[in-house]
């Protein structure tokens, strides 16, 4: 493909509440077997983008661990590959990334040394499948300077955490509001952009000269009347997991057959790091209904309408309802969990009870686990 990829995975997010204590949003486990960034990475790989940079800053250890080899997404190539770009102190820079545009500015050399004519910018918190070639074709056809991927949300959806757009009938961006408190618009930006590489370098350099650091505020909104910015509407499944509620809902969406089949049975595949775990085991007393269960789990109790991530142990007489149990959690016998997200590597003592009364409860337990 004639593009390089940049995945913005740097941010922390207060909407993730306690879940962001442990990791960047892009490293959030999703749908039992994946991490959020797998979707953008797999889309890039499946679109034949050969060279991809992941810009990280906030709490990146978990993300770096996930990306410790490029081979899972087929980026272990002689040409291109996967670049993890964290802030570094250089002769003329000693600050953290001050925003999305700044993070690209601090790695402008990488952009300048590439030779592909286009750049695909994506965020690391989207759960979707996309052939970026289609957007690039549209971008070229419209002679656009920047193309923004947009989606029409259902009426009544709270769009206050998104960029909200209005498009002209030919697709040209007319209005862009970033995270509006109140708006009558329902079309949102998915945070996926296509732009010519030289154009991006020029915009980012100008931005830096003016000490502006944000891609949306200082480039998209500021230039919307000056540059040809177009919206590309998508209809397929797309979800951003960057709030506890949408994270929960996105996971639950995978219990629907059409969503699950779209992501796991239809070409192309979403890839993830392979962890060499044995098949899931259901012992006597297991009672699993309408749930996702991942490799390495051992189930002895009842699980309903839930997503169980890898290597979870569910003790005898446990009841888990409408919950998400993240990786490597140990649930002692007789535990009752409802409407909760249980943080990874937690150890829940026997006879515990956690119920999310109004909304989703996040369970963080740091009990000691005795391993034989």
């Amino acid at each position, binding site marked *: 493909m004639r593009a390089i990829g940049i995945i913005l995975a740097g941010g922390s997010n207060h909407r993730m509440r306690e879940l962001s204590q442990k990791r960047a949003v892009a490293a959030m486990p999703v*749908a*039992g*077997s*994946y991490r959020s960034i797998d979707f953008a990475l797999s889309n890039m790989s499946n679109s034949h983008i050969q060279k991809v940079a992941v810009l990280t800053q906030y709490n990146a250890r978990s993300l770096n661990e996930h990306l410790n080899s490029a*081979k899972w997404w087929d980026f272990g190539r002689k040409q291109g590959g996967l670049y993890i770009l964290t802030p570094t102190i250089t002769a003329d820079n000693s600050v953290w990334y001050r925003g999305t545009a700044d993070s690209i500015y601090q790695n402008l050399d990488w952009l300048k040394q590439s030779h592909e004519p286009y750049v695909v910018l994506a965020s690391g918190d989207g759960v979707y499948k996309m052939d970026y070639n289609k957007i690039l074709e549209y971008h070229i056809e419209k002679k656009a300077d920047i193309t923004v991927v947009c989606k029409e949300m259902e009426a009544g959806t709270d769009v206050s955490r998104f960029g909200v757009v209005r498009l002209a009938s030919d697709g040209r961006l007319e209005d862009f509001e970033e995270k509006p408190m109140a708006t009558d618009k329902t079309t949102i930006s998915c945070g996926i952009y296509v732009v010519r590489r030289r154009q991006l370098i020029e915009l980012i350099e100008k931005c830096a000269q003016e000490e502006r650091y944000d891609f949306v505020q200082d480039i998209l909104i500021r230039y919307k009347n000056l540059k040809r910015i177009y919206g590309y509407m998508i209809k397929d499944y797309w979800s951003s997991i960057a709030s506890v509620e949408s994270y929960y809902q996105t996971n639950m969406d995978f*219990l629907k057959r059409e969503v*699950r089949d779209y*992501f*796991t049975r239809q070409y192309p*595949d*979403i*890839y*993830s790091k*392979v962890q*060499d775990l*044995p*098949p*899931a*085991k*259901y*012992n*006597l*007393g*297991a*009672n*699993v*209904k*309408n*749930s*996702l*269960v*991942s*490799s*390495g789990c*051992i189930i002895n109790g009842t699980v309903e309408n839930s*997503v*169980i*991530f890898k290597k979870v142990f569910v003790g005898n007489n446990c009841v888990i309802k409408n919950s998400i149990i993240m990786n490597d959690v140990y649930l002692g016998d007789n535990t009752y969990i409802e409407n909760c997200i249980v943080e990874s590597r937690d150890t829940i003592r026997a006879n515990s009870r956690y119920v999310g009364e109004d909304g989703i409860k996040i369970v963080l337990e740091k009990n000691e686990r005795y391993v034989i």
Partner: protein
Amino acid sequence: MLLAGGQGSRLGVLTAKVAKPAVAFGGKYRIIDFPLSNCINSGIDTVGVLTQYQPLRLNTHIGIGMPWDLDRNNGGVTVLPPYEKSTNSEWYTGTANAIYQNLDYIETYNPDYVLILSGDHIYKMDYEVMLDYHKENNADVTIAAMPVPLEEASRFGIVITNDDGQITEFEEKPEHPRSNLASMGIYIFSWPILRNALIEMSDQQSCDFGKHIIPYCHENGNRLFAYEYNGYWKDVGTLGSYWEANMELIDIIPEFNLYEEFWKIYTKSDAVPPQYISSESKIERSIISGGSNIYGEVYNSVIGSGVTIGSGTVVRDSIIMKNTEIGNHCVINKAIVAEEVEISDGVVMGEGEDVPNKIQPKIYSFGLVTVGEDSYIPPNVRIGKNTAIAGNTTPEDYPNGALESGESLIKAGDRE
């Protein structure tokens, strides 16, 4: 050196298109994963895999050895098929002959010791401990051996040792065994001894380790030792023992535990996604691999990756391999269903009397239904016990809609 060229004909239709080491085991694994994982876990990072019978599946599975960390700059895994030479071009005629034909491969690494393994056993073993034992005894050959019940000893190669573990005599399948230490087909040779024996015995027809090389070394006064192994070791050479070994994985705390952090078993993972269990499902005492969709009931079974089990279907005491699709309202009892099989709605398997199989009673027994890979089974047929099915079967193949116990239905050719 991992011997993986055998057919394993006692596994019937399961090995019609794949070599025995490539047959699926324990849901997501293949039999060869166990010796390969043992190698890397023991610190052996140079492995030659000798292939001959139906190697395609085996080759694609092993690839460059990435899942086992055997993609190395030096050493790593090398697949060694038989090849044409200027003087002759013969197949591998025996286990030792296969190694003899690859002397060049071993010589490029010029090792001190060579470990000979076979690709058809299920076990976890630290070969390094065995090598330490070999060095300690200043041995020329060390044979791994395990105690078996004396009444069964006549099925094995039996070693008779003195108090130090040195082998004094060697008997192949003796009628009246004088010891219960059975050879496991795992040998460590000091390389010069092996090299010399292989060259000296190169004219031997179908040169075999158990029959020729070990007796040759013994007669020539080499120091042979038995390394006693007492862990889990399972020969999965017959459909009965293959089925049994799979079923043992389901126990609450299985003797052979795949869930231990220590000594992991690696495999080429076919499926990333999790498995889905529907609201009508019931699953107990089973292991299920990634990417499967279960809409029916599963009891006491081992299910591979990407399997679909339809609603209203009940699967009991069965092994269902990768990507097989089972329709709605089926009853599957005590069956081994290979990869990529399609079973239509309303099929009943494993019913009726326990009549021995008419054609191959020794292979298709234990009351099992065995279905070969890529098979198709039409709707609403009933299939009895001790039966074998392979190929794209049509309703006309089932007189009165049934395949009675003891019958076989093996069709050539592939499914469209």
